[in-house]
């Protein structure tokens, strides 16, 4: 399991986007999500973020996500970019 070294951020607050900020934490994976489609897609967004953490084998992280109705592919892109900016080594994952 890998850790991130510093804070990283990606995305915007614009419609159809999601702003992801990742911060090093002591242990585990902690997700703080705010979404305009929370009742409909809150769980799905969380699942997407958790899946990426598993794929990238990252732990000891706090993820703050402000979602403005982003598609799954957008969420993936923003999370991976935030991790990259936080110093994580991004592994290519075969779909």
């Amino acid at each position: 399991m890998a850790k991130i070294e510093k804070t990283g951020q990606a995305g915007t607050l614009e419609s159809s986007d999601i702003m992801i900020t990742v911060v090093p934490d002591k242990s585990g994976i902690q997700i703080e999500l705010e979404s305009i489609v929370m009742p409909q897609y809150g769980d799905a967004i969380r699942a997407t973020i958790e899946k990426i953490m598993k794929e990238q084998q990252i732990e000891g992280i706090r993820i703050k996500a402000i979602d403005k109705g982003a598609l799954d592919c957008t969420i993936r892109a923003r999370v991976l970019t935030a991790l990259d900016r936080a110093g994580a080594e991004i592994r290519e994952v075969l779909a």
Partner: protein
Amino acid sequence: MLWSSAEAHTVDLGNPREVQEVRQFLQGFDLAYNGDVDYTVAFYDERLQIIATGSLKNNVLCNIAVAESLQGEGFTASVVSHLMREAATHGLYHYFLFTKPDMVPQFSSLCFKEIARSDSLAVLLESGIGSIGSFLHSIANETVNLPVGRRAALVVNCNPFTLGHEAVIARASRENDAVIVLVVSEDQSAFPFAVRFRLVQEGLKKYPNVCVLPSGPYIISAATFPGYFTKGQDTVAAQTRLDATIFGQWIAPALGVTRRYVGDEPYSEVTRQYNEALLEVLPQYGIEVVIMPRKQAGTEIISASRVRQCINKDEWQTIRRMVPETTYAYLVSSEAQIVLQKLRTMGNIYHRNV
């Protein structure tokens, strides 16, 4: 027009013409452009007219406005996102924002949370990593080991720590079961925060019921003391009241504090107004404000600004009478020489609380 055709442009703050354009645009919203910023962005349409703008001072977002014809189409989100990205390049991820009460819904929809409001003038919002909730939790944790009973608090800059500060705190220590001393964290004083904090800690070691903590981002900080949301003389009044409100509404209950001590301030106008705001606001939250007269050394009133003056003039006999051993030892140490040198070349331009 389409937002995609709008162009973001970093305003050259050294160019009076560009700054004047932004100033004029903001005037249309009855907002005064606060020139004391690090970064300003302006969005232009294809006719090169400004359609939106926003500025950044450290982690405080300010001067935000979007042309009326374009409001409600998510352009505020673009301006705010742009400023957040800029702040992130400086490693800042906790954002503050001041606005008028009628603008709050616009920013709430961007996940900004209200911290407090002062009268009908201004509202302080925050977003990003860190929140007043987690801050209150952490300072409450730091004070769990203090004796139970009546608790008092002081907010001090201690630039540097003097016998005057010690006298006020000693009295608070006698009159209360426990005392929490909050040292202003903002690094805008002659003596760096780390030094000020250490000298306060060392100088107060002999008082077992006193706990020294950093004041954090919510007390006398760049965030709680902004300068743009009102004009001219109202500015200081609104800022001091907002700072007092945050203390009364959030900080004091979290710390279990029911009294706040302040030093009488005969020299600094800003501090005098701040004390006035505390006297007006804190009792509304059930907090008693105790104003202490200044301690004297001989015929002279002890103050940190006087100590700084004496450093400039190399009057070490006077300094010796005004500061405790611990501060004196630091001032004559080799470690302090860089700070003293800076102090001498800058002169004294700071007005700070006690």
